[in-house]
Every structure is written in C-alpha cells, then in structure tokens.
C-alpha cells in the first residue's frame, strides 16, 4: 500500500442523483405537487405506479390522495394496460415508472392500449436520457426515438420545475395520450426568470441572438441558457429556442428560427438518433431549407456508468462542452474542439 492520498473521484452516488448544479435554485418534487393541485380541481385524475412511486415523485400524490392512487407492482405492461382500462371508463390516469420501462418494456401496451384508441392516459417516465449514472439499464437514451414513431402520442420534454408544474394540467386537459419525460426530486428552477409560459405544442424563444440559435429541449435548455450567457461574455450573441413539446413539433417556430444565416445547433438529452436533432433536420429538409444543423446529443452507443457530472462532460452535455462545441463551430474548425475524455474501461 502506498501512503499517498489517491485522487478524489466522483462517485456514481444514488441512481436518482440530481443533475442540478451546486447552489442552483431547485424545487422539490414539482410533478407530485402539481398533480396534487390538479387532483383538487379534477376528481377524475388518478395516479398509478409500478413499484416506483417514491422515485417518480408520485408518492406526494399517493400520500395526499391514497384512495386515488393505485399500486400496480413491478409490472409495467399491467401498469399501462390498467391505465388504459381506467381511461376507457372515464378516469384521467397519470402512470409513472422509469422511462426505460415505459418505452422498452411496455411499448406494445403504450402503443395499442393507450395510443391507438387515443385515450387520455398520461405516461410519466423518470430518468430520461442521461439523468442517472446507473448504466444502460436505467438510461433512457432512445425513448424519444421510440415514441416519436407512435401515432397520436404527444411527447413532452420539460426543462425544469416551472415547465413540469405548467405541463401537468395541460397534459390532463389534452384529450389524447401523452408521455412526459420526468425530472424528479430536487429539480432546477430556471424558466421563472424568463417571460415564459408552457404551452403544449409550442416552442418559445427565451432569448434572441444574431450569431447562433440554440434549439433545445428538456434539461438541455438549462444548459443552452448557461452556454448563451457564457458566450455573451465573448461577444457571441446567442438565441435560445426552447422546444418542450417534441411531438407534435412546432415546425413553424423551428423553421422561423432556422431559416437564417446564424449557426443552428440542436441540444437534447437523448441519442443523436431519432430525437430533436433529426426532427429539426427533417423539418428543414422537408421544407426545402438547406441550413446545416449541428447536433449536440448523446452518441449512438450504450453509455457508461459513473457520476453524472463526469458523464455529462464526457458525452458533451455539460455547459462547458456546449460552449466549447459552439466556439469550435464558429471558429470554422480553427478553434479548439471539445475533446471528450477517453472512453471508460468496461468490464
């Protein structure tokens, strides 16, 4: 044994570690509290979970409305089929589990029992994209790719607690099926500093800029705003278009933003395959626009386990990585590109 102190490594920590920056303003369990407020106005709202109430903020609703919460056990096919049956009889269910289970494991039930009949079932998936360091079993890096292909399904990727609080009643009001990428626990509170309201199906320009437009969804909007502020210090004028509804996509807003000579960058907490980047790119191509799109997204690979800040750096989602990528693109290839850490060792 050597007596030298080993370098302190970040630990994976809990499966559900918060992605909030140190000292960042957060709100506790915004989904659970929003569902409680909604439930007080709408008696037909019920909640279900598949042995993950505590980890999807559904416990807040369960504790406030025990007679309106239904525990389905670790059985995701049954969870979604049951939610469909409830909606058939007139209830408005919110069914929560992890995104990986709602999509990979129970997709046939989401597709055929919920989406095909067009039922008002709201599927709530936690740990979307890279929001856990637990490894590929829990990292829903392709949930948007799976679900964008599902006809009639509304897909929402909120940025922060403000988005979640405003999205919950909007999802219940929407007559058809929805999927919400849940941010849970201590969720950053960001958008209250902007003149912003969540509107289902609408993108929102959070800031204007002449040099670059960042088209972002989910928690990457938070990173986009941070990156824009940093780039402003370098006299780079960056616009941010927040796209909380992935489907149906606000194609008018996307085309307005991207028909430009600015650098167009998409940002998403999702694989580069089948998510926002490709949705924006196809929107442009289908409209005959030839704008180049720079995708900031997770790579098309199974991701490593580890601590979230390490992984966000490694895979290019951290604010540092976003700033470096934009600078690199603006520098026309002469500026240093963001170099991710080498791939981690695997067993």
């Amino acid at each position, binding site marked *: 044994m050597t007596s030298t102190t080993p370098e302190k490594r970040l630990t994976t920590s809990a499966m559900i570690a918060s992605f909030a920056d140190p000292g960042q303003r957060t709100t506790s369990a915004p989904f659970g509290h929003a569902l409680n407020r909604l439930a007080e106005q709408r008696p037909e709202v*019920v909640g279900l979970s598949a042995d993950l109430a505590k980890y999807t903020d559904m416990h807040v609703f369960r504790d406030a409305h025990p*007679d*309106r919460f*239904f525990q*389905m*056990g670790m*059985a995701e*096919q*049954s969870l*979604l*089929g*049951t*939610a*469909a*049956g*409830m*909606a*058939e*009889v*007139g*209830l408005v*269910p919110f069914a929560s589990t992890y995104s990986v289970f709602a999509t990979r494991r129970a997709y*046939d*039930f989401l597709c*055929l*029992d919920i989406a*095909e*009949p067009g039922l008002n079932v709201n599927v709530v998936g936690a740990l979307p994209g890279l929001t856990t360091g637990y490894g590929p079993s829990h990292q829903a890096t392709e949930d948007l790719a799976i679900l964008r292909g599902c006809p009639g399904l509304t897909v929402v990727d909120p940025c922060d607690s403000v988005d979640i609080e405003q999205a919950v009643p909007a999802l219940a009001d929407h007559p058809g099926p929805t999927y919400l990428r849940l941010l849970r626990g201590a969720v950053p509170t960001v958008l209250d500093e902007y003149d912003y309201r969540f509107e289902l199906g609408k993108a929102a320009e959070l800031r204007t800029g002449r040099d670059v437009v960042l088209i972002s969804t989910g928690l990457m909007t938070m990173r986009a705003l941070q990156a824009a502020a940093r780039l402003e210090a370098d006299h780079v004028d960056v616009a941010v278009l927040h796209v909380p509804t992935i489907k149906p996509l606000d194609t008018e807003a996307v085309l307005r933003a991207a028909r430009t000579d600015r650098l167009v960058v998409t940002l998403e907490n999702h694989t580069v395959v089948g998510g926002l980047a490709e949705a924006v790119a196809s929107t442009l191509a289908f409209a005959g626009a030839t704008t180049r799109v720079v995708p900031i997204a997770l790579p098309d690979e199974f991701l490593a386990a580890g601590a979230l800040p390490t992984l966000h750096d490694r895979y290019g989602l951290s604010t540092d990585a976003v700033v470096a990528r934009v600078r690199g693109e603006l520098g026309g290839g002469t500026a240093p590109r963001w170099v991710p850490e080498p791939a981690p060792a695997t067993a």
Partner: protein
Amino acid sequence: MTSLTTPSTPTAPTAPGAAPGTGDRAERVERIRRAAHRIRRNALDMGEVQGQGYIGQALGVADVLATVYTDQLRFRPEDPHWPGRDRFLLSIGHYAIALYAALAEAGTIPLEELETYGSDGSRLPMSAMASYTPGVEISGGSLGHGLPVATGMALALRHQGNGARVLDLLSDGELDEGSTWEAALACAHHGLDNVTAIVDVNALQADGPTAGVLRTEPVTDKWRAFGWHALRVDGNDVGALVDAFDELRGHRGSPSVLVCDTRIGRGVPLLESREKAHFMRVEEHEWQIARDQLEEGLAR
C-alpha cells in the same frame, strides 16, 4: 354466398331492467343452445366469405359466447356505450369472427352486415378493433392485453361506484404471455371481484398443440395459486356453463375465472376432425356440408 341466417327476435334477457342469469334453468339452457346454434351458423356464413380463418375457434367458443350474451351480460344492444353496461373484452382479437357472430345474435350489429366480414371498408375487420365495431370494447391482435385493460376498467368502475362487471375472454395460448399473469396478480391483489376471466382451453395454438408449444397445465391450479376463484367446465356443455357463471356471479372478495375446455370445430364433425385447425382452410364445396352437419346436430 348463402344468405345469412335470420335469428329469432334477439332474445336479450339482459335487456335493461332484466336481471342476468334469472329464469327457469331448463328454459335458459334451451334458449342459449339455440342462440349458440345461430352464432355457429353466422360464423360459418362469415367464414365462407373469406374461405378460411379462425372458424374452428368460433365454433368451439360459440356456447360460451351464447351464454355470455343471451344469459349473463347486462348491456343495451342499441346503446353500446351505456355506462352501466357489463364490459365483455375479447382479448383474443383473432376470435373476431365469433364475436361478430355473437353481436349479430345479440342485436348490437345488423345480421346483414356479417357478409362484409374482412372486406374493404367493413366495420368488421379480421381482427377485432374497438374503433371499428359497435359493441367491441378493446382492440385485439396482440395477445396478453385483455386482462391488464380489464384490471383498469374494474378498478375504475369500483372507484366510481359503478356495479358493472368486466368479463375478459382469453385463450389458453394467451397464458404464455407474461402480461396476463401480471394482471392476474393485480386483480387478486386489488380484490377485483367484478372481474371474470374466461379461458378458452382448446389446447391448440399457432405452432401446434399447447402441450407441445409451451405447457400451461395445470391451468386451474395456476389461477388458484394466483388468488383467483377458479372453476373448470366443459365449455361446450351449456348447462354446465350456466351453473358455473351463476356461481361465479355471486362470488365476492376475489376475481373469478372460468376455465372452459372447448373443442375446435364443435358442432360440425367435418371440421372437428380437421388436422390444420388453428387457421382453417375450408373448400368451396364443404361449406354447405358444414351447414348441413350443424343442422343435424341441432335436431339431435
């Protein structure tokens, strides 16, 4: 094709206000037997439209459907969305031919419409879909969906104080699907005594006899082990079906399941003995023979 057979006046003892499963037992059995006969004739006529299909299953399950629709289910043929109705879910979408035959017998869809079965623009697709057909509660096709959806309907009906029941017809092949057992756990856990599962055990699935594809026996023991009140009857014995459904309807505290042993092609000896019975091909000249054999069976 041969003209579709006319039912006697749709006999719904289950018309609004009438209590299901009441009346003289012998009369009930005879009424159901005659309804089952018409359902079989309807199914043969529909089968002839396509020349092939799940005809064997339809003939096999006709007695079960006749018991459900003419004796047990509370529904309004003219108002398929009546909130107080008992829900009958066809988890096995490929049995659509049997369900349409029963819905025509029940008066929910017009008898003449059966001849459009599986044709372009028809409300009666080969696989049952709720959005197409009045009286069809869920869309089938992918197996193992009925019981999870039944679980949700039953939880919601109970939550709303609605006394309607939920019946789910599944097949023994469908017991291969894990989701069926997820929902079986859920129904028992939540004490859903408003759920009745009906398992059509014809011992045959797509790749061959169930015993060789993936063994599901002992079926009744499995349901009991999952916390269900389970009975097993000859699913082609109308008297036994009536007694079993009556018993299950009165059961409280846990979900019920009726395991029904049925014979593929029942009522038509020509088809009962057919080897390729899962998706059956029937030659043009055989349809009339089949109908004649069915008539002879009723006369016996």
